[in-house]
């Protein structure tokens, strides 16, 4: 029996989701680390190193998903229109900039890391936007959502890293940055969800997004907001509260991206704008199974 109503795509699996998770968090972490370096002179070489590792890990997962992995150099052939090519082209200089920033801690390397990380994160979000066959991905609101969540995850990872290495940020700037990114993500998520509530996606997509929304809102917005605001208000407890808030922001972002790539990714399905007329002049309503 042919499938007619939209069904969950299986072409991109958890490895693809891993690229958006690793690349998003990695580039977000690099953006936050570079912003800290440029704004307050605070350096965390481990943040740049971890960012590079996460980005490389994500790209490695994509490589594992290729049917013909030893042709990987062909990925660079179409920068004119393919965001996958653009992401791949940005990756080598970005990794180099992160390596330099981790080693030399100079302002110039910070600027390079910041610009290239933003470009990488933007390219990643456009990869999904250009996938016209998946209504949950092609919606333009996915771009601000993925950029905001990447920075929120990066800020979360930055705070978590500080706890792991015992070098928590000296200034409240990192926490303020995390709060701003989490707020931006909550706005982007709300706008993205509102769009689909109006029925411009298959029922499966709407159901999947509705199912993850409480987690994204609670774990991704409410919990980190409370913890990070408490960390600002209670300097004595910052070592415990800030990393926990960061962890919540990070985990919610990963879960959201995994769900968008793997659970909400119903395809377009098939539809006929006008069923054939049984008699001359007769018309019938459009048939679009799985959308209402």
């Amino acid at each position, binding site marked *: 029996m042919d499938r007619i109503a939209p069904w969950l795509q299986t072409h991109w699996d958890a490895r693809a989701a891993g690229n958006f998770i690793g690349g998003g968090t990695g580039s977000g972490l690099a953006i936050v680390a570079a912003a800290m370096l440029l704004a307050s002179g605070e350096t965390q070489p481990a943040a740049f190193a971890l960012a590079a590792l996460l980005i490389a890990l994500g790209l490695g997962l994509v490589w594992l*998903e290729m049917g013909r992995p030893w042709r990987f150099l062909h990925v660079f052939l179409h920068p004119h229109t393919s965001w*996958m090519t653009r992401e791949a082209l940005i990756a080598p200089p970005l990794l180099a900039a992160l390596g330099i920033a981790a080693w030399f801690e100079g302002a110039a390397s910070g600027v390079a890391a910041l610009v290239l990380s933003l470009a990488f994160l933007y390219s990643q979000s456009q990869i999904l936007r*250009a996938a016209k*066959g998946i209504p949950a991905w092609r919606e333009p609101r996915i771009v601000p959502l993925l950029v905001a969540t990447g920075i929120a995850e990066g800020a979360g990872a930055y705070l978590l890293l500080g706890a792991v290495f015992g070098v928590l940020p000296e200034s409240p700037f990192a926490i303020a940055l995390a709060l701003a990114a989490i707020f931006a993500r909550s706005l982007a998520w709300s706008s993205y969800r509102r769009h689909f509530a109006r029925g411009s996606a298959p029922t499966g997509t709407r159901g999947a997004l509705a199912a993850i929304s409480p987690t994204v809102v609670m774990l991704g917005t409410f919990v980190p907001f409370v913890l990070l605001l408490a960390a600002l208000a209670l300097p004595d407890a910052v070592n415990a509260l800030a990393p926990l808030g960061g962890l919540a922001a990070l985990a919610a972002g990963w879960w959201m991206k995994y769900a968008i790539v793997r659970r909400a990714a119903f395809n377009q399905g098939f539809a006929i704008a006008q069923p054939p007329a049984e008699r001359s002049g007769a018309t019938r309503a459009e048939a679009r199974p799985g959308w209402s």
Partner: protein
Amino acid sequence: MTRWAMVVDLRRCVGCQTCTAACKQANATPPGVQWRRVLDMEVGEYPEVQRTFVPVGCMHCDDPPCMHVCPSTATRKREDGIVTIDYDLCIGCGYCMVACPYQARFKTDRASFAYGDRPTDAEDKGFDGGRLAVATKCTFCVDRVDAGTAQGLTPGIDPEATPACVNSCIAGALHFGDIDNPASNVSHLVAGNTHFRMHEELGTGPRMYYLWG
């Protein structure tokens, strides 16, 4: 300028799947891969229910999203509008498959055959290892079209130059021809009947026209 297109008369299609079988035979596609499918759709609600058969496949779009996203330039669009895949360039990333709103692309990672692990004689003849782990799809039988036009034949009129699915249709529901030529068979059909194109709102410019009234 020639621009190949397909016209499907939904009032004529009986859902026999002969086009599907002809495509599989002509293109030696493995089990589970159907470049030309016929959907069996129920339309309406009881008691006003109607059964409609809808042939689908690659729409050879005017603005193909699969081509734009392809990172390797394996997917291209010819001057005559046929969207092709260079199997030697394709990296099998699957990006085109999620970009296509018509579910027209397939990827098989391992060789598979209709009866167990070994190919039948016919499958052996048509087997192409170069099509494993890369994207594949309907080509509008581009080899037949090219070979036919090189001999001065007219695709859509002369069977030797016409896609296998169109040749095989028992009900005269499938038609192929040059939509840019106002005198062509497909131009006459589109002009003389009401029609739609699937998912036209997405702006892909699909070149399969469905006649309905």
